């Protein structure tokens, strides 16, 4: 992955298993979101290929790419909801574009998708009229409108309070369990990683490559890379200020 001559990450090679909740993790600026953009085809890789179910996405033509993309659902860091459309119109859009459902069926499915993310009755609301957590869930409702095989999330918990973040994690897990979808998440939220991830890759900013991959809980305890263990244990313990305060209380 590179922007012009500036290499962001090199020698990336990993598999995302069917039905996995796969986390792309790493410190700020290591290229997590850039990797996701490459996987989504928003940026072309400087070298190498990305394969989905054996189909070479990188070398595919525009029509084949569109066909592959229709099997995906994507939620962006800020939601990516169309502000001039109501939530119902946002969720209905992919169904109108890419399904054979009748308008009345689309309305039923929109109501169901919104109910699924805990937003039943919010059809007529605009994105600007709901909270950040609700916006993320509404974006998820749009992402799952077409019953995707793969769900991509870019920093789903960013900007959410701990309870909203936990609810979103539960929702992602429950959707994956119910539909069998594969989930790819870019995040550095440790509680989310340990709560739902089944597999992960760690991108290192210093060496500009992936330095480990596997189950995050296993990596935390057994990774050969100190930086990975440090990342997954939040620097190896509580923050210095927290420790100092604890000793004051004692």
């Amino acid at each position, binding site marked *: 992955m590179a922007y012009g001559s500036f290499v962001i990450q090199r020698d990336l090679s990993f598999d995302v298993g069917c039905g996995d909740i796969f986390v792309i993790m790493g410190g700020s600026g290591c290229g997590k979101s850039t990797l996701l953009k490459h996987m989504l085809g928003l940026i072309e890789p400087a070298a190498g290929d990305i394969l989905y179910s054996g189909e070479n996405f990188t070398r595919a033509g525009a029509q084949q790419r569109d066909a592959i993309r229709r099997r995906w659902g994507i939620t962006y860091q800020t939601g990516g909801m169309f*502000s*001039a459309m*109501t939530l119902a119109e946002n969720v209905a859009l992919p169904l109108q574009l890419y*399904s*054979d*459902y009748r308008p009345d*069926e689309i309305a*039923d*499915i929109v*109501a*169901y*998708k919104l*109910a*699924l993310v*805990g*937003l*039943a*009755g*919010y059809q*007529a*609301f*605009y*994105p*600007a*009229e709901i909270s950040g957590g609700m916006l993320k869930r509404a974006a998820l409702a749009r992402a799952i*409108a077409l*019953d995707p095989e793969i769900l991509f999330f870019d920093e789903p918990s960013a900007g959410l309070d701990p309870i909203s973040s936990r609810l979103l994690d539960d*929702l992602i897990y*429950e*959707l994956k*369990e*119910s*539909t*069998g979808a594969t989930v790819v998440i870019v995040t550095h939220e440790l509680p989310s990683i340990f709560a739902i991830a089944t597999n992960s890759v760690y991108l290192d900013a210093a060496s500009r490559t992936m330095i480990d991959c596997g189950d995050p809980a296993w990596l935390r305890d057994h990774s050969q890379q100190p930086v990975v263990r440090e990342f997954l244990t939040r620097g190896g313990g509580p923050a210095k200020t927290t420790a100092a305060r604890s000793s004051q209380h004692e």
Partner: protein
Amino acid sequence: MSDLPAGFRLVQENDKDALLVLSGAWVQGSNAGDFAALGAQLRAGTVTRLRVDGEALLQWDSTLAAFLLQCHDYCAAAGIELTTRNLPPGAARLLALATTVPPRQQAAGPRGNWLAALNPLNALRDALQMLRESLAFTGEVSIALARLVTGKSNTRFQDFRHFVYQAGPQALGIISLTSVLVGMILAYLGAVQLQQFGAGVYVANLVSIGILREMGVLMTAVVMAGRTGAAYAAQLGTMQTNQEIDAITTMGVSPVEFLVIPRMLALLLVMPLLTLYANLLGIVGGGVVAGGMGISPLQYISQTENALAINHLAVGLVKSLVFAVLIAVAGCRAGINSGRSSAAVGDAATAAVVTAIVYLIVADAGINILCQQLRI
């Protein structure tokens, strides 16, 4: 089992109990989930307990899940006890997930409708509101200018050169095109009429006075309103969306001093220069047409020289300064008062252009009346 059509069958077991048998493949295009038909059957009976059986189901997707949710909502509203059995595990989990949070009962806030927009009272109220906002904004700008003059302003001048470049040199292409064409149009109009009286040579007077006093500055201002005024509204509107203006305000800095004054000063500097440039090109454009109508270049230049007077030039330049202020005020006011969505930024840009053009025409008429009264 695989021969069963996609759909449902309601079996009445007794007065109170009914069994809903789901069968076949409930997938996109199967037309299996017509809840209206089921609702009609349920309403016609006296069912108080409904069991849903999914044993005969084959593939399923959101079609089934949406149907089950409708069943659940209907039963909840009608006081019918709903139980399920043999549903595919995923469908059962999704139904449980979709019914975890009760539906919101309160409707969304009121929406504007197009009939209300046609109401003249609403239009008048909106116009008054806009006038009030404009006056308040003009007041803020005046205070900021006073602080600038007295050296107390927090105006940021690092961006000034960029604004001048954006409003000036980058606009030269479009100003050149419009000015030459306006000069040519004026010349065509005048030449056709004046030639009937054998006074074709006076087309030079018409073009030079018309361009200097009126068309040069007005067309430049209209172009700048559409180009620079809209850009200002979009820039400040985006800053409003990104909470940059909130950040400036909470730092104790006036957004007007910090963001509006540099833009306004850039336009004040650039507009007279662009007007002079537009005047020159307009006269040249008129000369091209005059040449095509048999007036020699020497005659045209000589006649133009006779017609040119400092008062015509001064009127145009004074107008350019007034117009610069109006364009900047309209653009920046729309941007700073913008909402916080992408649609609101678009609305702000539109409002900036429309308001600026209305201001320009009203101000132009006012200045012309004043000049006529003062015999300038």
